[in-house]
C-alpha cells in the first residue's frame, strides 16, 4: 500500500493539478480535497498548492485560512500530520499561524517568474529527507507576494533552531529577509516555501530538471516506512 497524499483545492488554487502529478510521479497516490469539506479522508499528508486562493484578495492566503478544510488541517498539523505549503500554500500556513512570520509584496513590486537556485538547509523535515544538507537545487519561482518577513527575534529563533529550511542563492528575488525561501515548524512536519518543487519533477516542463521530486519522495519514504 502506498501513501495517500491530499491536495487541497481552494477557489483560485492553480497548481493543484501539478501537485497531484508530482505526487503521482513520486509513486504516491494523490487525493483531491475540497475547501468546503472538513473531512480529510484519511490522507497521510497534505499539500497546500500554489495559486491565487480567493484571488489573493485582502492578502495572499488570508481568506483561504478560514475555509472549513483548514480547521482540520490546522488541528491535524498540531498532531503531526505532514503538511507542505507551496507558494500560496505557504502564505496560507503563515496566515494560519502554523508557521511564523508573514509574506509581503515583492520588494520590486512585480510578479516574478524564473528559475531559482536554493540551498536545502534542513534535511530533517518530513519533506526534505531525500536531500543532502547544503544541497543546491534549481526549481521554478513565481509569485507576487514572496517577501518573507518576521521580527528579528523570530528570525533569530528560526536560525537558532535550524528552521530555515531553504535559502535563496544568487540574487534575492523578492527582498525576503535573510534570503529565506522556506521554513519549517519545530516538529518538522509542517514546511512552507515560495518556489515550486511540483513544477520540477520531469525534464521536459518547468525549468527542465527534476530537482523538486525530492520533496515528494521524501514524504513517501517516511510514510511508507512508518
Amino acid at each position, binding site marked *: 500500500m502506498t501513501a495517500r497524499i491530499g491536495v487541497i483545492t481552494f*477557489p*483560485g488554487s*492553480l*497548481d493543484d*493539478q*501539478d501537485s497531484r*502529478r508530482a505526487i503521482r510521479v513520486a509513486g504516491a497516490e494523490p487525493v483531491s480535497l475540497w475547501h468546503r469539506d472538513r473531512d480529510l479522508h484519511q490522507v497521510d499528508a497534505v499539500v497546500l498548492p*500554489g*495559486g*491565487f486562493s*480567493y*484571488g*489573493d*484578495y485582502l492578502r495572499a492566503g488570508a481568506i483561504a485560512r478560514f475555509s472549513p478544510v483548514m480547521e482540520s488541517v490546522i488541528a491535524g498539523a498540531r498532531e503531526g500530520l505532514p503538511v507542505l505549503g507551496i507558494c500560496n500554500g505557504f502564505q496560507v500556513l503563515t496566515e494560519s499561524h502554523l508557521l511564523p512570520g508573514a509574506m509581503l509584496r515583492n520588494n520590486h513590486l*512585480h*510578479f*516574478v*517568474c*524564473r528559475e531559482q537556485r536554493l540551498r536545502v538547509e534542513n534535511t530533517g523535515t518530513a519533506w526534505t529527507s531525500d536531500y543532502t544538507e547544503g544541497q543546491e537545487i534549481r526549481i*521554478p519561482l*513565481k509569485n*507576487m507576494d514572496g517577501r518573507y518577513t518576521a521580527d528579528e527575534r523570530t528570525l533569530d529563533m528560526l536560525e537558532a533552531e535550524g528552521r530555515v529550511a531553504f535559502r535563496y542563492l544568487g540574487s534575492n528575488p523578492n527582498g525576503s529577509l535573510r534570503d529565506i525561501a522556506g521554513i519549517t515548524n519545530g516538529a518538522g512536519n509542517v514546511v512552507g516555501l515560495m518556489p*515550486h518543487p*511540483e*513544477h520540477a519533477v520531469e525534464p*521536459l*516542463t*518547468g*525549468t527542465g530538471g527534476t530537482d523538486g521530486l525530492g520533496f515528494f519522495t521524501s514524504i513517501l519514504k517516511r510514510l511508507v516506512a512508518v
Partner: protein
Amino acid sequence: MTLDTVGRAASTPQTEQPWAELGLKPDEYQRVREILGRRPTGAELAMYSVMWSEHCSYKSSKVHLRQFGEKAPESDAMLVGIGENAGVVDVGQGYAVTFKVESHNHPSYIEPYQGAATGVGGIVRDILAMGARPIAVMDPLRFGAADHPDTRRVLPGVVAGIGGYGNCLGLPNIGGEVVFDPCYQGNPLVNALCVGVMRHEDIHLAKASGVGNKVILYGARTGGDGIGGVSVLASETFDDTKPAKRPAVQVGDPFQEKLLIECTLEIFGEKLVAGIQDLGGAGLSCATSELASAGSGGMRIELDAVPLRDSSLSPEEILMSESQERMCAIVEPDKVDRFLEICEKWDVGATVIGEVTEGSRLEIFWHGEQIVDVPPRSVAHEGPTYQRPLARPEWQDALQADDPGRLPRPTDGRELREQVLRLVASPNQASKAWVTDQYDRFVQGNTVLAQPEDSGMVRIDEDTNLGVAVATDGNGRYAKLDPYTGAQLALAESYRNVAATGAKPLAVTDCLNFGSPEDPAVMWQFAEACRGLADACLTLGTPVTGGNVSLYNQTGDTAIHPTPVVGVLGVIDDVNRRTQMAFAEEGQLIYLLGETREELGGSAWSQVIHDHLGGRPPAVDLERERLLAEILVAASRDGMVDAAHDLSDGGLVQALVESCLRGGRGARVVVPDDLDPFVFLFSESAGRAIVAVPRSEEVRFTDMCGARGLPAARIGVVDGESVEVQGQFDIPLAELREAHEATIPGLLA
C-alpha cells in the same frame, strides 16, 4: 420616466431618439425603423446601436474579410470555421484545439492595467465558450517610442494587467511580442491570444434551440461599468482634447473568471448545455441576439431576473452593460437543477432569465411589459455593410522609392561590431525578459516551450505527448511599405516560428490593427492586407479560423502603421522531439538555410542605425517557406538538428546572438564567399533559419536539404565564449548579454 414599451413605440412614431449620440448614422436609424415597421424602443435602440457598431458588426471590414472564407485552402483539420466565437482545428488523437487573438487597444490606453486585464479575460471566455479548456495565453503588444514618458505609464500597466489577470487564472503565458514605434504613441496595441483544447465531441456552439429550453445567465452580477464602451471606445477616434467623453472602463475580476472556467468545464463534462455564449462587447444585447439568431426558435427574456450590482440600472443599461466574467447558457429544463448545483459548488451566481420560444422573435420584458420585440438576425447578423472608398495613398510611391540602399553602411569590422551591439541593444531587438518574467509560464505543468523560444509549445496529452505550438508575429514597418506583402510576411514569420520548434503549421488567427476606415488610404491598406493574408493562407494551406479587427487606431489624422498580427497554430506528435533555439553543444555545425539577398527595406538596421523607413519590404516566397518548414519539421522529428532559430527582424546576426546567449555558448562564423559581410549579417530576407547540426548528422541533414532543393550553407560552428565573424569582429558573450539585457530594464526602472 415612463417605460418605453413596444406598444408605446408603435403609438408615438414622432418621438425624438438619441440615435446619433449612440453612434448610428441617419440611414442606419432609418433601417432600424424599416425592420421594425415602427420606431425602436429605447431598449431596442440601445441594442441596435451597440450591435451595429464597427466593433461588433465589422461593417467596414466585412467585405474584405470574406476572402478568408472564399479563398480558404482545403483543409481536413478545420472542424469549425470563421463565424463562431473561435475556429476549431483537429490536431489528431481525437483532440481539437481552438485559438483566437483579439484586441483591447483603446481601453488599454485609458486604463492600462484594467484595459489589458479585461482583454485577457474576454479572449479566454471566447475560447471557453467553444467547449474548450483554456490552456495558454499570448500577448502581442505595441507601444510608442521606448523612451517616451507615456510609454513608462502604459507599458508597465499593460504588462501588470496581463500578468495580473492571466497569472491569477492559472494560464501559462507562452509568448507574444513587444514592439516600440512612435506611431503607436497614442494608440498602443494590446492584442491577446488564447488557446484551448477539447475532445472532438465536446465542441459547443453559440446557438439557442429547443423550444422550452432555459436561458441561464451566470457569473458576475451586472453593473454599470463599460456601458456603451464597446461602441464608443472601439469605434470612435480617440480624441484626448475632450476628457469629458472618456467612457467608463471595466474592472476585471480574474478570480471570478477562474471560478467561471472551472464551473463551466464541469458543466460541459456533464453535458448540461445545448448552447453557450460568453458575454463580451455589447453584453447581453450581443449574447441574447446571437444565441437566438443562430438557433432555430425565438427567445424570451425577463430582464428583471438579471442579478444586478446596482439596482438603479435602467433596462437599456442592463442590455448594454459590459460587466466582465459573465456567460449565457441554453439548458434543457430537466438539467437546470444540476446546472445550478454546479454553479453553487463553485460560488458562481446563476439565474434563469428566460427561455427559447416558438416563433422567431427576440422578446425582452421589464416589469411585465415588453420593451424589445425584434428579429434577432437583424440585430446580430444583418447589420449594415459598407463598401468604404479606398485609395492607394499618394505618398506610397515616394515611400517605396526611398530605398535604404543609399544609406551609409559600415565599412570595416570595427564599424560592423559597433552596429551589431547597437542593434541587439535597441528596444525592439533587446531581451524582453523584463516583461515576460512577470508572466507565469509554468502553471499547469505542460509548458514545453515559452518565451524567448520561437513559439510557445504546450503538451496536451501526458500519455502520448501530443502537443501544440503557437507563434504570433506582425511587422507594421513592412506593412506600411507594402501592406499586401507585409501581411504575408507576418504570416510567413509566424509559420516559420512554429516550424522552427518542430511543429507542423496547421491554421491561422489574426488581429488586424488599423487606423480609421473612413480614411480611404487606411481602407486601402486594410484591403491590401486582407488580400495578402488570404492569398498566402491559400498557398501555405493554413486556413484563417478566426480573428479580430481593430479600427480607428489613430491620433488626429495620423493612423498607426497598418499592423496585421498573425498567429499560427501547429501540432507536434511528440513534444519530446521539440527543437529549442539554444546553441548548447560545443562543436555543432551552424547552417544557414535559405537565400540571403540584399533586403533592407523596413529592416531593424535601417531603423536603429538611420531612423529610416522606406523602400520595399523583403520579398515573399511562400513555396520556399513551405519547403523550409517541411525541412525543419523533418529535421526535428528525425533528430537531425539540436537547435533552430528563425531569421526575421535584425537578420542573421540577431538570431545568431540570441541562440548563443540562450545556450551560453559562442559561435565562430565565416561569411560565405558570395556575400558582402554587411548584407550577410543585417539583411532581412524571408524564408531563412539557422540550425545547429550535430556532426554525426551532417551528411544526413545536408543530403535532405540537397534532395529537396533547399539552400543550406555551413557558416560556422558553436564554439568559445564569443560571437566571432572571421575577419570582421569578435564580441564576447558577456558584452552581448549586457547590451541585449540591460536596455528594457534601463528604460522602465
